[in-house]
């Protein structure tokens, strides 16, 4: 792969957390490149540093040492505001617990990233209707999250992550709270939507079905890439 297709690059990235009085290393000098359009599974036992690596890729956390670049743009010296604007434009998130805003309807949850990006009302409606149709939730558009099943909520979360056609989606255990059949549907949906948009996925998972559907699998053990 050449550098022009490289979406995100981590060089010698380390991260540690303070647990009480002790400092615990979550990542140790990780160097990693993820290509544009790639489906990457991040696996490893609990506490291996998957979520930390995912947070760093999603620019919601910063490393203690090392460099992270996205689309060839170094992020180390960017302000919080600049990082926020990059996330707003280029990165979508799918959380294990869905993390939908409970007072918003499915439509409004999906619409929110477009609203943040400054899209007009008509463009937002058109795009949200389109993606709601693709995730099969057109009939549930005006329902709030508590009126939806777990699978439906995760579909809304995936639609929210993809509605702005981001360069990267980071997903943290997206199938962990779903039954087997629904989990398979969610994986298929991420594949279908991701492929059609050319979106890069980095998915932290324990689920072998997810890993098997990814282009690449990265294994982390004690904060070190295997």
């Amino acid at each position, binding site marked *: 792969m050449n550098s022009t297709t490289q979406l995100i690059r981590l060089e010698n990235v380390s991260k540690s957390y303070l647990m009480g009085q002790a400092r615990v290393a979550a990542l140790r000098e990780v160097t990693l490149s993820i290509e544009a359009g790639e489906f990457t599974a991040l696996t490893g036992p609990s506490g291996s540093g998957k979520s930390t690596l995912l947070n760093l890729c999603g620019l919601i956390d910063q490393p203690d040492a090392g460099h992270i670049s996205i689309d060839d743009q170094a992020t180390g010296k960017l302000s919080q505001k600049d990082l926020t604007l990059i996330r*707003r*434009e280029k990165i979508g998130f799918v959380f294990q617990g869905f*993390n939908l*805003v409970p007072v918003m309807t499915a439509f409004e949850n999906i619409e929110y990233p477009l609203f943040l990006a400054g899209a007009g009302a008509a463009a937002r409606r058109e795009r949200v209707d389109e993606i709601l149709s693709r995730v099969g939730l057109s009939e549930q558009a005006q329902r709030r999250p508590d009126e939806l099943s777990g699978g439906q909520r995760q579909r809304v979360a995936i639609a929210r992550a993809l509605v702005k056609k981001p360069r990267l989606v980071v997903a943290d255990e997206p199938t962990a709270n779903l039954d087997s059949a629904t989990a398979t549907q969610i994986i298929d949906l991420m594949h279908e939507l991701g492929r059609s948009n050319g979106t890069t996925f980095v998915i932290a998972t324990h689920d072998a079905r997810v890993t098997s559907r990814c282009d690449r699998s990265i294994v982390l053990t004690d904060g070190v890439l295997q």
Partner: protein
Amino acid sequence: MKWLWFAIKNVLRNRRRSLVTILIAAVGTAGILIGGGFALYTYESLAEMAARDSGHLILAQHDYFDRDEDTPMQYGLENYAALRDKLELDPRVRLALPRVQFSGLISNGDKSSIFVGIGIEPDGEFSVKGPTMKVLAGSLLGSKSDTGATPEIILGSELAKIMKATPGTGLTLLSTTTSGTLNALDVKVSGIVTVGVPEIDKRLVYVALPTAQHLLLTDKVSTLSVYLRDIGQTEEMRGVVAAMFPGNALQTWRDQAYFYIAVRGLYNRIFGLLGLVIVVMVLFAVTNTLAMAVVERTREIGTLRALGTLPSQIVRIFALEGLVLGIAGVFSGMLAAAGISLLLLFSNVQMPPPPGRSMGYPLQVNLSANLYLVTLIAIITLSIAAAWLVSRKAAAKPIVEALGHV
């Protein structure tokens, strides 16, 4: 608009808590408006009473207000008729009334007492007194009371009791003349009045202006009380009249309204403190509600931040929630206060007499646009400020930490 809609939905998220906060803000607002409106009504009533008593402007000889007289009317006005004619040419002037202030002894033959007398022009004087003077018995002085027989007088109610006088009773007034000698005059009681202040009712005697001048052996008057059509023109007319008569001394009703100034000072402190307590109470209520909302929604704040929401936009969401709570509370409070004010206007609830007074007064609450506007701005500003205070820290919290909040 989208942000505001989101804020409204968030306020409705925990309806009971929001309702309690709105009720506290409403009760606080109503408290400020009713307390403040009552104070304004009191100021207005006292100002009117003071102005009705003294006149809006009081014109006198240049030494009258500053120096004690050695003999009665030493600093009296001589040319008051000409001054009056000139004053009454101004359309803003309703009346200019000459008065003679004097004092002495009043006797019923068996018993004497000190009196404080005022020589007046009855028709004009009693037309401006209005509800500040109440006739308890008999009648007021007529305009032709001194043309024939015994001159008539009006007595304060307490002095009438001391003199055991009723309408028709004959009494004698004894006073010092302008030359320093004593003069006596037999008079007949025409009526008995009260001005609502027992200490004044104990000394008060009204006589017609010629009667007073006859008793004091003078053709001067003490002052010329100028009544304007609008009390709001007092300061403007002070300048006009001062320029018109530069050789004379001039005071406004406010210069002589010691009770008004004292009550205003007292009420300003009482209601100011009350207002401050209420404002702090509302601030705490809104702060408490939003602080709980911030803690409960820390994870959601993390999610919104991850999606690309700036910390300032998070603070804006909570500030708008403060705005919604503030507006709901302040408008409910304003409606309640306006309703109570209107109810009091038509229900004639009486307040007990204030200290030193014998007459109560109606409990009313002014509907002041300025007071409503200032309260509206203050409560809403405080609500927004409370939201800003409690949300700015959460908005700046590291996203990973916020997402991990349980």
